């Protein structure tokens, strides 16, 4: 086809575009991912039995706040990276805030503990499974967010995949918090962060292949 004909055809059937189109696409993928992930958890490991009681305590909200702060920045990152010609340095730099705050809380806990307590602070009772379960719960979110990103126009695929992985992991960790009974800043700082780091790496690896458009 001649390029002039192509231009005529593209402009001929032009439809107006809503300015909220990108948010809508991301919202759909994220919502589907959250639903899938929540169902997956309900069907497998379940919600902790004392959830009503736990929600009255600070530890639950610390987990919640930490993963939700990362997820909010992750969403901003995905939105930026999904659009050509934008830069994502600000949300990327802001990620340091929740991580450093929790790391400081961990440092204070560790310094005031003796050796035996330190070990149990770090390992809790679910250290071996926590990160892997977060990564597992992130799989439906990966599917939803990759679907969204493929409708957008990511031009740096590895970064886009990593951002989607960060968002998938932090959202999955938020959901996982309804199952997990760990309650120390040290445990969350190590194992939740590790789970999110794992999904971020996974996303970077997958993005290069799965986000082409």
């Amino acid at each position, binding site marked *: 086809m001649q390029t002039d004909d*192509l*231009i005529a055809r593209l402009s001929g059937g*032009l*439809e107006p*575009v809503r300015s909220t189109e990108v948010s809508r696409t991301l919202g759909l993928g994220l919502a589907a991912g959250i639903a899938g992930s929540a169902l997956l958890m309900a069907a497998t490991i379940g919600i902790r039995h004392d959830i009503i009681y736990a929600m009255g305590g600070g530890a639950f909200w610390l987990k919640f706040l930490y993963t939700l702060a990362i997820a909010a920045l992750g969403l901003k990152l995905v939105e930026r990276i999904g*659009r050509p010609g934008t830069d994502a340095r600000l949300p990327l730099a802001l990620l340091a805030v929740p991580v450093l705050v929790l790391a400081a809380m961990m440092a204070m806990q560790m310094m005031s503990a003796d050796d035996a307590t330190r070990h149990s602070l770090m390992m809790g009772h679910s250290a071996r499974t926590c990160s892997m379960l977060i990564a597992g719960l992130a799989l439906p979110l990966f599917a939803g967010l990759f679907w969204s990103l493929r409708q*957008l*126009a990511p031009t740096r695929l590895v970064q886009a995949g990593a951002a989607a992985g960060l968002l998938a992991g932090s959202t999955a960790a938020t959901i996982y918090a309804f199952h997990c009974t760990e309650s120390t800043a040290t445990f969350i700082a190590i194992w939740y962060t590790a789970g999110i780091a794992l999904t971020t790496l996974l996303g970077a690896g997958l993005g290069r292949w799965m986000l082409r458009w």
Partner: protein
Amino acid sequence: MIPQEAQYRDWMLAALAGDAAAYRSLLAGLTRHLRGYYARRLGPAAAEDVVQETLIAIHTRRATYDPQRPFTAWVYGIARYKLVDEYRRGKRAAAVPLDEAGDLFTADEAQAAIARRDVEKLLAKLPAAKRALVREIKLEGHSIADAAARTGMSEAAVKVTVHRALKSLGEELGDSHADG
């Protein structure tokens, strides 16, 4: 800033609101830049396919343009992505050349943009109805029959109107030369 930014951004915002004429002008303008950009890197023979692919990408992904950001950077991002994609698909041994947004909107294109602006200035002296006809037929390359159908004038009347408009512009130019 890239010299074409303001004009292209205006066209893009109009296109996003559904203005097909602005969109056609935008795509026609971008095609010239894209052709040069890809021809310099892939050779003229391979360029045209990638130009078309990029136009389609611009079209299908137009919702991802954020009006808070420069439009030329958005287009360049897509153009560059399609270039990298072409290199990757062709398994070309050569590394993708380094470039930046300015390379898509190069100086010779800037000259053309200045020439276009002069034309626009001249056209502005015509009454709106005549201006639309001249633009349609002489700049955008529509047929007289198209223009007649759109305006409801006869083809002969369209021809005469355009002819007179051009003549009056010629006189206008002659005047300004006499003044200078």
